[in-house]
């Protein structure tokens, strides 16, 4: 009897989880052109900036621009309803961009290898997020 109750209870719980999941999926935030445009700027800019890694002064400007765009994206997406997963993704990206920005703001010189690897990571992550955001339902 206990086993049957346990099975029924576990089925009930998993059923609730599936229903919640389906509800979240159906009412998820739709595709947003502004959000897509902001993540596109970060993808393109971080990819192109790798050639400027030899120049710290130029990279300081680039990292500031990336930080501003990332902050704008974080703020914009955090106010869209039913957008929790994208908010999580954008927050993680923002942490990486902020690290780059802080390093160029606080240090006189930054290693070229660090700059290239960091921008590669940012570019990869932004590209993953962009691909996912672009697939969101239009209506």
């Amino acid at each position: 009897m206990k086993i049957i109750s346990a099975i029924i209870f576990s089925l009930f719980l998993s059923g609730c989880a599936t229903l919640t999941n389906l509800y979240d999926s159906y009412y998820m935030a739709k595709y947003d052109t502004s959000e897509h445009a902001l993540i596109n700027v970060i993808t393109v800019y971080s990819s192109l900036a790798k050639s400027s890694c030899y120049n710290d002064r130029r990279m300081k400007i680039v990292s500031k621009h990336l930080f501003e765009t990332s902050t704008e994206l974080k703020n914009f997406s955090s106010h869209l309803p039913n957008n929790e997963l994208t908010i999580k993704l954008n927050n993680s990206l923002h942490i990486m961009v902020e690290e780059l920005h802080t390093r160029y703001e606080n240090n006189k010189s930054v290693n070229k290898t660090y700059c290239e690897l960091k921008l590669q990571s940012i570019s990869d992550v932004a590209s993953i997020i962009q691909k996912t955001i672009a697939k969101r339902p239009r209506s």
Partner: protein
Amino acid sequence: MTPHELAITAQNLKSQFDLGLLNQSEFKELVNNVIIVETINNDALLLEENIVYHTIIDNIIDIASALV
């Protein structure tokens, strides 16, 4: 990324550190970033799964509406 690929990435970073191309704080930050990238990858997969569910529900509703 498989555990093997993760190990290779970490080893590459360690080599750059040993060669003096990265300082300690940069090395630590980049290793931490490898973990962040993996987390983002997993979250992106979850979001894609939700998008697929949404499409399936939409199609079911379309078919049901056509039948009524």
